[in-house]
């Protein structure tokens, strides 16, 4: 356990989590809270370990929906941002449209997607993508625009074609912003997936929560919620790992490299 001895941060996280779980368990026992109101962590753990196949399958389904939605959001988000930055007309058209549609509560669109796309995986992926795309478009657009004008002049002075300016200057320059947007986007995609499963579904952790509520099976609902938070956290850190791997040059990564 190398990280345990090396990472002060890691130790703190583990300590805080254990403390919270302990207090939760203690409160349940001391005040005799009924299980269907707030199940003690022990019963949630028992629930998960008794049905590993069931939870494994439901989790994988939700992860699949989230990942698909997120991937679509990245493709469309970065593509839209490039279109917005490349053309004044598209800028006025799309950016205004985006801002306007961003103020629509997208969860409210979930039932419409079910009408359009049926009750399979597609509407869930669509909702996840729709919610996740906004922070990605907006951050990417800002990143693509935030280029030193001298850098663009440098390219122009060498008579570089426009796509060079985009691919060799603007896009790499925007990567930190794209990752910032993606970090918000990945959490949003998970929310979208759950909303999709709430609205129409027979699989996934959202569906598990909904059905256990109907039967007052609180340990099962809590098991799903805890798995969701674990999934969300892992996805966030995967994003951060990718960032570290792709952007060794960025300011936020330099101190770590210099310390080595």
């Amino acid at each position, binding site marked *: 356990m190398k990280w345990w001895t090396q990472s002060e941060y890691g130790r703190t996280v583990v300590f805080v989590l254990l403390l919270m779980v302990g207090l939760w368990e203690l409160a349940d026992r001391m005040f005799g809270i009924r299980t269907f109101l707030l199940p003690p962590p022990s019963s949630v753990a028992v629930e998960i370990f008794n049905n590993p196949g069931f939870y494994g399958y439901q989790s994988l389904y939700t992860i699949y929906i989230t990942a698909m939605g997120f991937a679509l959001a990245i493709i469309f988000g970065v593509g839209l941002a490039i279109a917005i930055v490349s053309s004044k007309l598209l800028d006025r058209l799309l950016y205004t449209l985006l801002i306007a549609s961003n103020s629509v509560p997208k969860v409210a669109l979930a039932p419409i997607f079910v009408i359009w796309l049926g009750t399979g995986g597609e509407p869930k992926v669509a909702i996840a993508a729709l919610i996740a795309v906004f922070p990605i478009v907006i951050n990417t657009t800002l990143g693509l625009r935030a280029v*030193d004008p*001298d*850098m663009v*002049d*440098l*390219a*122009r*002075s*060498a*008579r*570089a*074609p426009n796509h*060079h300016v985009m691919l*060799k*200057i603007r896009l*790499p*320059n925007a*990567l930190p912003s794209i990752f910032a947007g993606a970090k918000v986007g990945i959490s949003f995609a998970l929310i979208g997936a759950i909303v999709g499963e709430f609205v129409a579904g027979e699989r996934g952790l959202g569906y598990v929560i909904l059905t256990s509520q109907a039967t007052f099976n609180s340990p099962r609902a809590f098991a799903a919620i805890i798995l969701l938070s674990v999934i969300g956290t892992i996805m966030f850190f995967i994003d951060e790992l990718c960032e570290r791997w792709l*952007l060794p*040059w*960025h*300011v936020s990564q*330099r101190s770590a490299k210099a310390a080595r």
Partner: protein
Amino acid sequence: MRSKRASSETVADGRSATSTPYVRVSAVSKSYDHGDNPALVLRDVTLNIAPGEFISIVGPSGCGKSTLLKCIAGLQPVTSGRIMVKDEHVLAPPDNMAIVFQRDVLLDWRTVLDNVLLMVEFKGLKRRDYEARATQLLTTYGLGDFLHRYPWELSGGMRQRAAICRALVVDPELLLMDEPFGALDAMTRDDLNVELERLWYATRKTLLFITHGIDEAVYLADRVVVMARNPGRIAEIIDIDIPRPRPLSVRQTPQFGKYTSEIRRLFASLGVVRSE
């Protein structure tokens, strides 16, 4: 000492009357449109630069010297008048030209060598054909051990040297430098001045160097163009007859002092600096 006053009407010819000028700036005016009252940045600027000549432009901030450079580079349109580079009307950045900016604008995500080769990529040339030249240039400029380092691992002086190598890698005939050493400390600046003078002496590129340092301008140039502001215009063009190559010690000679004090007096008479 030969010096002539260039009023807005007279044409300031290149030093050598025999060869045709490489850069010809003819009665150029430039204004920025701010609604009803357009701001005049350059008024009737006329300047010829001979091939292989080193011109310094010195002037206070706001005199339009950077704007003039950007117009010659074809990065900004002129409002009236015309600019010719190598007998071609400048409407877009001319070929065979490179710029060095005040800030090095190196790309953070590229190594020093890749930053230098960026120009090669921009021009649609093959990297392979220029790798040896880029490495050799960087080595000459003392960056041989830093080819595969990132810009943030370099000092300010090293970064600006890399930026100069980036401009030189495609071997431009015309080099435009916009206060390239303005952000450096005095010692690094002296080093880079000496290196630039040697570079120019060896390659005889046509060089336009913008600065607000009078000493730097005189040390480097064949002719110093003194600009005034409100509106931006050429106040005077001064020939610098100091033999080359010039060691840094020429700055201690009385001849050098005469040139710099003349320019300082000129600025004082223009109301740019207060005279004691």
